[in-house]
């Protein structure tokens, strides 16, 4: 199955997610007009969500993203781990 959702981050930018899943999430694409430094790290965030259960709680998804950010020294502007988790959750439905 595949889902798509869009979310406007309060005081921030627009973020959307395209998520493909069956028993597990097997593909995630995060899109939007936000900033992530370094830019290449968005793929690492997307990769970190692959393999999660589509029923995963929003908080757990956000925690996964926060862990990648902390380990790689990533800076987000106009988007937050919580906003990405929210839109991924919305995309799965």
């Amino acid at each position, binding site marked *: 199955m595949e889902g798509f959702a869009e979310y406007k981050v309060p005081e921030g*930018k627009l973020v959307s997610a395209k998520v493909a899943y069956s028993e597990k999430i097997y593909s995630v694409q*995060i899109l*939007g007009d936000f*900033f992530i*430094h*370094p830019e290449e790290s968005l793929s690492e965030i997307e990769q970190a969500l692959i393999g999660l259960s589509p029923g995963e709680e929003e908080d757990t998804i956000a925690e996964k993203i926060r862990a990648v950010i902390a380990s790689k020294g990533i*800076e987000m*502007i106009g988007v937050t781990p919580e906003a990405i988790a929210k839109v991924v959750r919305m995309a799965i439905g």
Partner: protein
Amino acid sequence: MGLETHPASMNMGIDEAIAESVRNGAAAPTIRFYRWNPSAVSIGRFQSMRKEVNIDACRQAGVDWVRRITGGGAVYHDFNGEVTYSVIAPEDMFPKGIRESYAFICSWITDGLKGLGIDSRFVPINDIIADGKKISGNAQTRRNGILLQHGTILYDLDVKKMFSLLNVSKEKISDKMIKGVEDRVTCVRRFSDAGIEQLYESLMKGFTGGKEYDIGTLTEQERKRAEELSGSVYASDGWNFSR
């Protein structure tokens, strides 16, 4: 570098070639001003080309498309409608925080606009507003110790044309929506009779005020590298349609 005009892929290639040159110590910190011919839509690093840009409409209108290395949103760079700048320099010349460095560089734009009698101010994250409406959008990246910030200063605004090139649903391209954008976005022509060259000259003053500088051009090596990047990256579907 003085005002130059290039196609979209070359404009992006030049930015990256200069960044490499500054990193290697082969070029001084650089400020460049440029226009886009053909006119083009640039999208942010994390946007989807097909979702944001009406490729068929661009083809019909002879408008290019390109993905930037910077984040941010889709921008329509009309040849007669805006001036783009880039600042490419070691990041230790700027405030450490990205948000603070936006404010730092954007103050050069507001100084430039002041030269045309336009009062404007920086509004975080990355916009400049005049009379409460956006007149400039900016985007920054940092890699290998080099800061690259580019941005657009709107000279003229054709919302209908802009919407025809972006993927805004037909229902949304109503008179009401167009009016909505016109209420939120503005341009130099709404404040001043200055020509686009005068805008560039005033921006040049704003950007270079209080700095020692020479006006230069690309070296042969930089031009070759820019052409290479233009062809292999910025004109390629692999890059432009990667999302």
